[in-house]
């Protein structure tokens, strides 16, 4: 019964997906060929070999060079990319991907199922921290069926599997270059070879990365643009000025100070969008270290939540961008539930709760996230909020490695953080709350130390339940519990607006946004 239902739904999906390009291509205007687009990238990516590095800037540039099996639209529905179509078996354990025909690597070698198997079974299993847990715990086998068909067999149903083939999570790596080598020391890492619409022409360190059109791209007629320059400008204000003076055409999310967003988006011929972040749906919060005295007290944590003026944070610190979250799951992604206890800014109530919790004036160390000015401002505002409620706070500033070390070794009282939801609560959300993920050494694990068997159980159910309805049920429950217990203090569903010249079209077409590459973009 169930199986047939799924099959039918999938069949429909596949059909819809196959048609997906038609409406896109038929959009108001016919794309124009040619042209150069200048985009800022910040900071300079350490490397462009996306299999080995998934830093934000790496993804942003490498998304044009590498491709994965699937893309995801703004509603997070899977779309074909290197996989032309796919099928999921009725027991939700076997995934079969049909590959595009006539795809070649940038060096001219054909792209085949061998590459896919090598990538998913060997390369990424060894080096990719996001794919590794999935492939090690959920996957039974990855096999080549024929040159253009790959089959993945799961040990048990795993809902997020279909969401895991995004380009940063599973970029296809050329087997003929990497098989049998020391991946990280392979000299080819400097000259990345992918199947994507653009190729690396030149990387002038500290200055720019120059990508040019892949003439042999498998999708006929794409890409539209001739070249892309990724400009490296380290100072946020200088980036804003560079846009104003016409030196760059696109300011990617987070590349300018939030205060500049409003000003810049009012400039003539300037468009702004917050789309393209649905897959990642960054969720910002404060992690209380529940091991540390008073922070283990639920009442105290609730007091903190009432003390923080989250609206001020959004409106003043983040320039009005984003939405106040209600719980662990972003309202932009799937399985969100609004049926949870809510917190509003209420200093009086905060004082009351904090007093009742038995707080005796100990100093709370607030570890700031070293990702720029805005986060510092937010720390300062929250510090002031908490002090107004009678809590003594001391801000600690550090650099990225310092933060990583302190966060991953649990050396903090309150820690700022923001995590990607990765399209599915099982991969992007559960990791911060389940007790099995309390481990030192990873700043994105459950660093606060919250542990609740009930929550563990519900997250496990959510991951492996065979239907979305069942999954939703588990997730609704867990959201309710967490919003009451506050293992973390959710502050903001963040928006990272992309600012660009209006004559750059089709810039953001998927739920991954600019990171999915400029395949469809064109310039008027």
């Amino acid at each position: 019964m169930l199986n047939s239902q799924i099959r039918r739904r999938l069949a429909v999906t596949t059909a819809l997906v196959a048609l997906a390009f038609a409406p896109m291509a038929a959009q108001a205007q016919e794309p124009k060929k040619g042209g150069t687009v200048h985009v800022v990238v910040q900071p300079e990516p350490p490397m462009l070999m996306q299999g080995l590095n998934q830093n934000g800037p790496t993804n942003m540039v490498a998304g044009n060079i590498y491709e994965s099996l699937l893309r995801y639209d703004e509603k997070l529905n899977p779309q074909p990319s290197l996989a032309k179509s796919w099928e999921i078996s009725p027991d939700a354990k076997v995934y079969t991907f049909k590959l595009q025909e006539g795809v070649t690597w940038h060096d001219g070698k054909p792209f085949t199922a061998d590459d896919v198997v090598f990538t998913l079974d060997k390369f990424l299993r060894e080096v990719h921290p996001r794919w590794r847990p999935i492939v090690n715990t959920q996957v039974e086998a990855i096999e080549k069926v024929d040159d253009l068909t790959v089959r993945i067999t799961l040990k048990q149903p795993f809902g997020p599997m279909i969401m895991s083939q995004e380009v940063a999570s599973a970029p296809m790596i050329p087997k003929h270059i990497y098989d049998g080598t020391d991946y990280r020391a392979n000299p080819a890492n400097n000259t990345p070879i992918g199947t994507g619409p653009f190729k690396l022409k030149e990387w002038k360190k500290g200055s720019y990365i120059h990508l040019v059109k892949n003439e042999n791209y498998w999708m006929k007629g794409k890409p539209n643009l001739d070249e892309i320059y990724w400009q490296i400008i380290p100072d946020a204000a200088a980036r804003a000025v560079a846009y104003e003076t016409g030196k760059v055409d696109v300011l990617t999310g987070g590349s300018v100070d939030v205060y500049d967003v409003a000003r810049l988006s009012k400039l003539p011929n300037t468009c702004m969008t917050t789309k393209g972040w649905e897959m990642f749906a960054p969720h910002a919060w404060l992690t209380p270290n529940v091991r540390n005295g008073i922070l283990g007290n639920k009442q105290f944590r609730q007091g903190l939540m009432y003390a923080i003026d989250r609206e001020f944070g959004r409106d003043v610190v983040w320039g009005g961008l984003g939405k106040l979250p209600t719980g662990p799951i972003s309202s932009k992604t799937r399985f969100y539930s609004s049926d949870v206890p809510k917190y509003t800014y209420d200093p009086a109530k905060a004082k009351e709760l904090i007093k009742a919790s038995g707080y005796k004036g100990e100093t709370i160390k607030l570890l700031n996230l070293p990702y720029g000015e805005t986060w510092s401002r937010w720390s300062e505002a929250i510090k002031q909020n908490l002090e107004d409620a009678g809590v003594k706070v001391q801000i600690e500033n550090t650099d990225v490695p310092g933060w990583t070390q302190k966060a991953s070794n649990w050396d903090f009282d309150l820690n700022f953080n923001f995590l990607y939801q990765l399209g599915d609560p099982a991969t992007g959300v559960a990791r911060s709350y389940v007790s099995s993920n309390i481990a030192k050494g990873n700043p994105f694990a459950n660093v606060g130390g919250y542990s609740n068997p009930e929550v563990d159980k519900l997250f496990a159910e959510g991951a492996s339940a065979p239907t979305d309805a069942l999954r939703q049920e588990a997730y609704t429950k867990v959201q309710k519990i967490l919003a009451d217990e506050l293992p973390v203090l959710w502050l903001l569903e963040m928006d990272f607006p992309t600012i660009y010249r209006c004559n750059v079209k089709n810039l953001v077409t998927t739920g991954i946004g600019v990171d999915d590459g400029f395949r469809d973009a064109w310039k008027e």
Partner: protein
Amino acid sequence: MNLLQFLSGRLVKGVLVLFAIALLNFFLIRAAPGDPAQVLAGEAGAADAQLLEQLRARFGLDQPLLTQLWIYLKGYATLDLGFSYRQQRPVLDLVLDRLPATLLLTGAAFIVSLGLGVVMGALAARRAGRWSDSLITTLSLVFYATPLFWIALMSQILFSLKLGLVPNVGFETIGANYTGLARALDIGHHLILPSITLGLFFTALYARMMRASMLEVAGADFVKTARAKGLSPAIVSRRHVARNAILPVVTLAGLQAGQLVGGAVLTETVFAWPGIGRLMFDALVQRDYSVLLGVFFISSAMVVGFNILTDLVYRLADPRIEAAS
């Protein structure tokens, strides 16, 4: 002592200084919290213990400290400044890539500030007590007291954004594909703002120094001799006063070379100038030890080299040195 002895003496001293700098930097950076593996893992947005271990083994971070130091020093002796796993390139390549930009920037700033400073200081001294002296003295005080980054930002906004006279950031117009003279002009155009901003503080410094030095030399006996010969004031002040007064300024300028590299960190960051100052700051933020150490080393070597150069200039300009040393 002849030139060769002098040079070899200075070189040996320079090498010792560099050795000490290498040693200091190595231990300084090792004392920092966090290691490169954690940074890489942190920025990847996900990390597990296995990844961290893989990375640490790659970086040789699992070796004892002394072994790491020994490997590091051995490498330096052969100009192998290590390998940046973060950028997947040898450090020397990275630094050499960026070095020309920094040399251009600091060189231009140095020449501009020294030239301008000497001329301003000399003018002020010749007109000591008059309004032009007051103007120059006041101006140099103002430059001296203004924060470098502040000037950088202000001039960026005024000259680039409001007046549109010069580009605000970068080394050249990207994508313009200029060649030859056009390219040189384009780079020169980009160079104006950063080099002047960086040079302003030093202009002030040299102007003040030159003025004081001129006034001091003006009281020297040989100046009286020159005037007693019936030389015109202009010749006295150019040939006798300025030529002697400039010597301590050159010495100071040589000593200031290190500060110039330091100032380049700020300037290059604000103006997105692709030089080693920025490479250094980026490397620091990213805890790319090998690059940071490499840049430290190269910039110190630059300063040492520069000091030798100014000593050499000084030697040529002042015949007394040979006898004294």
